[in-house]
């Protein structure tokens, strides 16, 4: 196996931080979050699951799609093109899996989402395997694993004295210049993938339960707070709005921005004139779960869930996606 010491890894990260936009897990006032870093100082190497996914760095929560300038009756529209490369370091495999889920719609379905493609192309994803599964995790139920390399460019695994480095893609290989690698005998031990396996019913089984009473039961508890979609690495709904940034005589500048949206919000389906075709919480929460396990796989291929468990630990009223998955599997069996 390829091996790197922690010291050599730090040297490499310090160098990367000079050359690219480097994002890594950090402790932010007691919360572990992926954040931009200027050097290896402050980068966490031992952490559980960051509280937010890394989605924000590929599909930003607020993203300027166009700079709009109006001079008199003349318009100029300019797209924002990020110039620097970006490296996401210390990604958990579920977060790379989340990017792959969004790729299936934004990149693999025509027309390609231009802003997302630019972010994706400039980004290299360096994973750090989870040594074991954490509270709420169920990645092994939905095609993932705590040490899955599938959707990453490089995968690091902690071993005695440093890290084993697995090169997954050419993009990953291209990043290795400056990393002092050694060859060592043996292979890194697999992570402890001992989480309970939650059953995933096929889309057809979900369809038979569209009118089931369980949506009423789960939906009644929902507060429509939207945290589940906010923390989700695979949720991709967005809204598009304009905001005026400056007004001078003869020149108005504004931005067209894309922001994350949530199908669990109260007025998600409210149209002009006031009609709302999904006016109840049970209807909205059903839509979210159906999107993940029925619509998304039917329309775009992958499940819309990577088993990170963030929605479970974040939900203020303990709505548990695995309880829903079990409920569907049990009912559809009968």
């Amino acid at each position, binding site marked *: 196996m390829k091996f790197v010491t922690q010291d050599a890894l730090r040297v490499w990260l310090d160098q990367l931080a000079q050359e690219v936009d480097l994002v890594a897990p950090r402790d932010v006032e007691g919360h572990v979050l992926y954040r931009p870093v200027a050097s290896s100082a402050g980068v966490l190497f031992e952490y559980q699951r960051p509280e937010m996914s890394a989605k924000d760095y590929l599909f930003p929560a607020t993203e300027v799609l166009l700079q709009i300038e109006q001079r008199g009756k003349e318009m100029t529209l300019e797209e924002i093109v990020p110039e620097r490369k970006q490296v996401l370091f210390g990604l958990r495999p579920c977060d790379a899996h989340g990017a792959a889920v969004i790729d299936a719609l934004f990149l693999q379905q025509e027309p390609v989402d231009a802003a997302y493609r630019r972010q994706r192309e400039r980004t290299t994803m360096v994973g750090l395997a989870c040594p074991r599964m954490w509270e709420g995790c169920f990645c092994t139920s939905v095609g993932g694993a705590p040490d899955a390399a599938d959707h990453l460019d490089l995968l690091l695994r902690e071993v005695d004295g440093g890290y084993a480095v697995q090169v997954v893609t050419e993009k990953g290989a291209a990043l290795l210049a400056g990393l002092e690698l050694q060859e060592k005998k043996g292979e890194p031990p697999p992570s402890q993938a001992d989480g309970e396996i939650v059953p995933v019913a096929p889309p057809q089984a979900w369809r038979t339960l569209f009118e089931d009473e369980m949506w009423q039961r789960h939906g009644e508890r929902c507060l429509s707070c939207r945290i589940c979609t906010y923390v989700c690495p695979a949720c991709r709904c967005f*809204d598009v709005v*304009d905001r005026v940034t400056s007004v001078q005589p003869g020149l108005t500048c504004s931005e067209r921005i894309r922001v994350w949206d949530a199908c669990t919000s109260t007025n998600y389906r409210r149209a002009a004139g006031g009609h709302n075709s999904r006016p109840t919480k049970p209807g909205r929460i059903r839509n979210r779960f159906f999107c993940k396990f029925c619509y998304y796989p039917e329309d775009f291929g992958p499940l819309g869930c990577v088993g990170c468990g963030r929605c479970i630990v974040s939900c203020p009223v303990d709505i548990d996606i695995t309880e829903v998955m079990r409920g569907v599997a049990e009912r559809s069996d009968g």
Partner: protein
Amino acid sequence: MSGNGSNPMRPFIGRLAGIRDVATGIRLFQVEMAETEGQAAAAGYRPGQFAFLSAFGAGEAPFGLASGRGPYLEFAVSALGHVTHTLHGLEVGDPVGVRGPLGNWFPMEEIKGRNVVILGGGIGGAPLRPVIHTILDNRDDYGHLTILWAARSPDLLVFTDEFDEWRAAPDTEFHVTVDRGDENWSGNVGLITQLLEQVAPQIDNTVTITCGPPIMIHFAFLTQQKLGFTPQQMLTTLEARMHCGIGKCGRCNMGEKFVCIDGPVFWQYEIKEFLEGFL
């Protein structure tokens, strides 16, 4: 297809070539595309498609295109929210943005030779105007045309300036009704479903095209079924809030279907298969 070559979220720039009121609070905007690529996209327009219209600085919103016979893309806009109020404040010559035309269209080729019943409710009449024009301009290609036009009140009837032409067209009957009349109204008062029952159009070899608020579509379908129309004879175009128009943003899903890319035009037998209703 939509948008601007490499980026479908980037609008084409257009200019307002004409603005006129077509009902109380509903204004028709004629847009001339300024860029070659936008002109090519607009030339591919087919009745039933929709497009996003931008009032830059305020935002964009989708509208079923109401285009007439001229060279312009035409949008019937009711001032209901921030974007539409801003649009109502624009003047001829002002720049706007257009993404589209988007979505599918009415199968005008496939329904040649058949009788057509058109049911338009309020601003829902907008995307039906180009259907009516297509039939009237190719009159021999279609059978009998029945137009049922409705609104909540007389001042909300759209395209009243075209009523005379529609009435006088060969092999065409035109009926209009309002939910509530006023002191100047001497015509029908009642719902479009009641009017439909009175008119009782021929069923054989007929296709119906309904557009209006969801509640109207729902009951118009029921009445049509009661009269004997089958789901294979009934077309509609659905509205939904949407933010991209290209199947990405998630807003307009009805079950696994997206109004923007699977529609907005649907046969009733397709809608019946939706896991989630439009109402």
